[in-house]
């Protein structure tokens, strides 16, 4: 047994993101059971856990792509209030286009593979109402540059690009509107190790320069260790343990977390 922690006393800022007690079943499969999560402004929350434990489902919920059977979701942002799961389809779409960015493990989910890379990023700006061609192009280029995408490939369609470059296009699309929240689902999985390190480094820079709040899901504990301030461990649709990243890695409490951490050391 360990001690029960106090409520924050020094750091009084409200969490940017709060997910309260969400549950979701697909038929007989309980993908999520009473899961809660918070992320403070500028914080990086890492989510780890076995395959099928509900990580991607939770991330899709944070992106308002998926609505749970029950539970609440709030973002502490100007002009945003109430349980976001109650918003209508249009309001949800607008909110996630303008305030939330997401990078999927599979670039096919996030990108139109045959449109130009800059066009993919511009599309996000169009959804948010930007109409001037010059502004679209300029903003798309800025976002691609911040994602460290090679600018001579601006007009190449993602299908012709390497995996690392495709992830950078997704990232550029995700940050083009300077979102308050960036969601990353296995952003470096499937990339070869040296490319992985570079994408990771880009993420780290973005986080430091812009103080974006991030939620990152990864099987790669090295990625989580490098980026996350706090870590949440999931198994079978439930959160088994959460804590400061160094504590989760150095002094895991739950049997499952110990197994997970020791397997990778």
């Amino acid at each position, binding site marked *: 047994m360990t*001690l029960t922690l106090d409520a924050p006393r020094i750091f009084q800022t409200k969490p940017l993101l709060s997910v309260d007690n969400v549950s979701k079943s697909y038929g007989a499969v309980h993908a999520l059971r009473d899961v809660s999560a918070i992320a403070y402004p500028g914080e990086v929350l890492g989510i780890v856990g076995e395959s099928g434990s509900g990580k991607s489902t939770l991330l899709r919920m944070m992106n308002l792509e998926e609505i749970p059977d029950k539970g609440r979701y709030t973002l502490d942002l100007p002009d945003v209030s109430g349980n976001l799961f109650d918003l209508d389809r249009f309001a949800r779409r607008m909110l996630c286009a303008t305030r939330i960015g997401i990078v999927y493990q599979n670039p096919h989910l996030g990108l139109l593979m045959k449109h130009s890379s800059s066009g993919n990023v511009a599309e996000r700006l169009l959804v948010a109402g930007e109409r001037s061609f010059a502004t679209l192009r300029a903003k798309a280029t800025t976002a691609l540059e911040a994602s460290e995408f090679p600018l001579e490939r601006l007009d190449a369609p993602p299908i012709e690009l390497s995996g690392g470059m495709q992830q950078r296009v997704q990232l550029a699309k995700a940050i083009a509107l300077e979102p308050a929240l960036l969601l990353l689902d296995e952003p470096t999985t499937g990339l070869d190790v040296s490319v992985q390190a570079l994408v990771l480094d880009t993420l780290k820079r973005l986080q430091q320069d812009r103080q974006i709040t991030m939620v990152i899901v990864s099987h790669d504990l090295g990625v989580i260790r490098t980026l996350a301030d706090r870590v949440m461990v999931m198994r079978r649709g439930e959160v088994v343990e959460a804590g*400061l990243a160094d504590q989760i890695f150095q002094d895991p409490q739950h049997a499952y977390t110990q197994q997970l951490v020791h397997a990778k050391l």
Partner: protein
Amino acid sequence: MTAVLEIEGLTKAFTLHHLGNRIGAFSDITFSVDAGEFVLLKGANGAGKSTLLRTLYRSYLPQAGQVRFQSAHGEIDLARAAEVDIAHLRRTEIGFVTQFLTARPRVSAEAIVAEPLRLSGVAPERALEQAREALELFGVKPDLWQAYPTTFSGGEQQKVNLARALILPQKLLLLDEPTASLDAKARAALVTRLAELKSGGAAMIGVFHHPGDVEHLIDRIVDLTPDHFVEKDHTDVAV
């Protein structure tokens, strides 16, 4: 003198589920540290020295006890403080110096050292200047300042690590064998910097492989050898 840190009844054990057993690291530890005081932790291998430091930093979760810290925001029990509060204190008031640098690809030595200053609001140019002074002090060659420490030697990495960890004054400094792998010049620089921080009022708790290095800084010794928990004035004992 006011106590910066009061540790009371602190107990730490590890439950290893796959072995079905429990390893006790220490139990019922009580001592306090004043501002400007330097406490040396002593004890055989496995006595729990590193574990105690990590528990104070909250990398480890204790089972019982209190760690009352006088922060700029008033008294806070580090054993129970919320994670965000711990994260905040680590950025502002509590430092932990270990043997290992976490180097990052494509971040230069001077940028790594300057980072805590930048995060605390020092202008980037000024932060870099101070970082270079610190690297110089620890004897890192100027031609390495702009290089990436990922390829540095163990000793060079440790110097960068120390320059970074000690660049900002801290209210509480935890030191786990910071002299390991340092040459004589860097050890001397470390001792100089620690003396400076101590006279600035930092409370320090440290483990040193060769306590002789810091002999003149030590105010008190806490011996963690099991069944032998004692606290002594430095004047009573030889190191």
